[in-house]
């Protein structure tokens, strides 16, 4: 028989069940969206460089492809805009659409040297929708009362912060690639602020899980001690936040390490960002029905 059609179908025991419909493709989609949106904003307003904006849109397109790959009927993707009234997925899909539309229009207007008001306005619009795009995956998850560990305002906040961090990491790579290494110091200094904030929010979220109902505690156990602890503690936290924090601090103290640290820690942060979303998705626990 093929894979169970939902996790409750696996067997008839009343127990915690782990959600299984959203896994790597969705984690990738959320991750790439965050990276792209975050880097777009940074590249547009902080470190405008030729090609930087375009580069940032590639992961966003990648996110779309990842989503398409996960849809049962990808040819009906356009229908996903239909339930704006109730579904965060619809709203998110629309935001991503507008983000990309405005971003490409802005690029086009810059390329065709339109009067500066227009590109700026378009970039502002794109930025607005990029911000929504950074928020919407977390809002999708938090809108589900079915899974207590998703059903928390901390989840959109965490995904939002992670989008900034991964966007920042991508920005470091862009700075390196486009020969703007002299901008690395302030770019990495931003990490010194964002990493601890993210860590703090993660710890708050974990602590409320650890002290919550049975399903929350089960999710906590999975993340911190169980099957997901490698990906989460080692990956999302250790590799994705702690290690880069150290690397960045060291690099800022010893500037000759700046480029090497930027390269290494950006890869760590990116991997960690993906693993954060992956872990949170996989640690989605349904409480026992009875």
């Amino acid at each position, binding site marked *: 028989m093929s894979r169970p059609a939902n996790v409750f179908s696996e067997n008839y025991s009343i127990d915690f069940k782990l959600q299984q419909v959203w896994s790597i493709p969705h984690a990738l989609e959320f991750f790439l969206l965050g990276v792209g949106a975050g880097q777009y904003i940074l590249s547009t307003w902080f470190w405008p460089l030729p090609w930087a904006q375009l580069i940032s849109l590639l992961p966003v397109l990648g996110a779309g492809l990842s989503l398409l790959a996960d*849809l049962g009927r990808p040819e009906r993707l356009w229908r996903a805009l239909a339930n704006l009234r109730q579904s965060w997925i619809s709203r998110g899909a629309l935001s991503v659409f507008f983000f990309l539309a405005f971003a490409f229009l802005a690029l086009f207007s810059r390329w065709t040297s339109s009067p500066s008001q227009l590109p700026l306005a378009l970039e502002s619009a794109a930025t607005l929708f990029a911000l929504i795009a950074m928020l919407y995956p977390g809002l999708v998850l938090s809108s589900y009362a079915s899974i207590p560990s998703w059903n928390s305002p901390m989840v959109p906040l965490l995904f939002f912060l992670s989008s900034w961090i991964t966007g920042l990491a991508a920005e470091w790579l862009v700075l390196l690639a486009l020969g703007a290494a002299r901008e690395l110091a302030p770019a990495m200094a931003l990490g010194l602020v964002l990493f601890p904030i993210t860590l703090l929010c993660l710890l708050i979220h974990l602590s409320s899980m650890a002290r919550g109902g049975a399903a929350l505690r089960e999710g906590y156990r999975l993340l911190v001690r169980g099957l997901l602890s490698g990906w989460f503690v080692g990956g999302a936290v250790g590799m994705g936040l702690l290690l880069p924090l150290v690397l960045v601090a060291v690099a800022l103290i010893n500037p000759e390490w700046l480029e090497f640290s930027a390269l290494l820690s950006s890869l760590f942060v990116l991997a960690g960002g993906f693993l954060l979303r992956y872990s949170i998705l996989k640690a989605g626990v349904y409480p026992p029905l009875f």
Partner: protein
Amino acid sequence: MARLGMVIDLARCVGCDACTIACQTENGTPTGIQYAPVFRKEVGKFPQAKVLFLPTLCMHCDDPPCMKACPTGAISKREKDGIVLVDQDKCCGSKACIAACPYGALHFYEEQSAMYGKEMTAPEERALKKFTAGTAQKCTFCAHRVDQGLAPACVITCPTNCRIFGDLDDPRSEVSRLLRERNSVALRPDAGTEPSVRYLP
């Protein structure tokens, strides 16, 4: 205008799985998809131990989380009787509904596969014509039977008569009477779904 619902008397259920199979055959669901599984849980310690049987199905919630989660608006709740249905012509297969349902009532139909592995049997071929691969599906309270004035397949087959079906808004219906006379519980009350299925412990 009615509000169809079900009362399941857990004291009566003996965990025989007749409902699960009756539903599968009535709806011709694809391999591996069961709209009405019966769950089990052991309670107590030897020798005061027993297995609790929990028949389930879609709760046809008054505030359906699947309907809110669905990006394509494929899920709707019938005005005339409250039955929640998936329109598989609109479903894009996002599986948001599956994640959003606290009861596991939604199922993703990935692709056709034969129950016996090698060849598709004649009943399967017939039944699967009405399902679109790559979409979600779920219990419909046997809407096709209800529309003919018949009770759902799980209800009629139950040997202990533990599933009682009727109009929750009609005070004279048996479901209403049972809910008045006996204590009842809903599953996952924390999820705020207001299910139309309640259980008599």
